[in-house]
């Protein structure tokens, strides 16, 4: 079927708020001509360029990798650049700032609280400093060891999971899906030796056990990180550690110089596609 080249008028009901002039947020409606393939971000740009230059929001890459344009679209936290308007509705959409955050202005949430919580879980490799700082050699990590935490590295810190979390909506002290996923990402990293430090953070009040597994974080995540799974894995790790049943997997070694990595047995290579 050929794409439609006729623009369709879609009503954008956008939440506006300027703390310097407004007592509370209000809805402002704009009529936007939408073509097939236009994203919500495109629509906002059109509004700013043609109707209202005062509209404010965050964006950057416009390709779903920076996480800047997270907002509440038709009641669901998602990325504006990743959301095609005509996939949502043929007549009207609502655009609001991410909930569970203070609003700086219009569609711009104050994400500092999220980043402070993220920093508190020490989201970096914790290991002997001398080993880390020694430029010789590299940490050997098998594909299986990488697979254990790879999914959790896809997080782009957009804040959609934090906005969707019902526990965070009532308890601001809860760390939230993103920091806890980051914590578990490092727990599962075979190069990391920081579990004993991070478990105190994870099991404290507002940590992993405040999660009731609503699953909304995983539903809204635009990158397929599945923070709900990460938190449940974290709970399991904490409980097994408490019961002294945790596996004593060693952290990966550092290999100095070429030739010390082991070749996988029975390696097969793709067939040549050109002769010679």
């Amino acid at each position, binding site marked *: 079927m050929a794409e439609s080249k006729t623009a369709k008028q879609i009503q954008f009901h956008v939440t506006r708020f300027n703390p310097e002039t407004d007592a509370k947020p209000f809805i402002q409606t704009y009529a936007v001509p939408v073509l097939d393939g236009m994203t919500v971000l495109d629509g906002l740009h059109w509004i700013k360029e043609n109707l209202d230059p005062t509209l404010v929001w965050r964006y950057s890459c416009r390709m779903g990798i920076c996480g800047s344009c997270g907002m509440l679209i038709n009641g669901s936290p998602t990325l504006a650049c990743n959301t095609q308007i005509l996939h949502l509705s043929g007549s009207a959409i609502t655009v609001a700032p991410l909930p569970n955050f203070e609003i700086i202005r219009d569609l711009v949430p104050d994400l500092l609280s999220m980043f402070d919580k993220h920093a508190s879980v020490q989201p970096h490799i914790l290991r002997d400093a001398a080993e880390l700082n020694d430029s010789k050699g590299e940490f050997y990590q098998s594909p299986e060891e990488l697979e254990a935490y790879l999914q959790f590295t896809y997080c782009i810190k957009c804040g959609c999971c934090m906005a969707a979390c019902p*526990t965070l909506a*009532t*308890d*601001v*002290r809860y760390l939230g899906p993103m920091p806890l996923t980051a914590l578990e990402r490092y727990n599962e990293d075979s190069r990391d030796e920081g579990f004993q430090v991070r*478990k*105190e953070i*994870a*099991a*404290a*009040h507002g*940590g992993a*056990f*405040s999660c009731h597994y609503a699953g909304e974080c995983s539903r809204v995540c635009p990158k397929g990180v599945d923070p709900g799974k990460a938190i449940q894995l974290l*709970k399991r790790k*904490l*409980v097994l*550690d*408490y*019961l002294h049943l945790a596996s004593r997997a060693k952290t990966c070694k550092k290999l100095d110089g070429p030739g010390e990595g082991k070749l996988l047995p029975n390696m097969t290579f793709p067939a040549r596609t050109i002769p010679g």
Partner: protein
Amino acid sequence: MSNQTKYWTWHMAAGVVLLFLLGLHMLIMHMGGTVHLFAPHGTDAVSMANSQWRDSKIFFTITYVLLLGVGLYHGLYGLRTILFELTLKPALENAVTALLVILGLGLFGLGTWAAWAAHTIVLAGGRG
């Protein structure tokens, strides 16, 4: 060791034990006509004769106390979790915890005394 891990682990363990004990309770008390389990004096599980028969068995005294204990812990810890999500001040959180601990221990003590009293009374003169 962080307390939250400990309390949560016991909460889960209590839930598992509750499933088993409540299942037993259902079979004995509410499915007597069908299953007729531990009721040697007719199908009415709550009849005086059947009740006294169970009270005379130390097995049931222990399961009563166990059911009371795991039920109280699981329920009160769950209640504490829900109350804490109201974002209480730390002093109030400590007060809520203390109140629930006192309430739990008190009810457990009362229930254990009642179960043991029933057991000893029946053994003394009210054999089923």
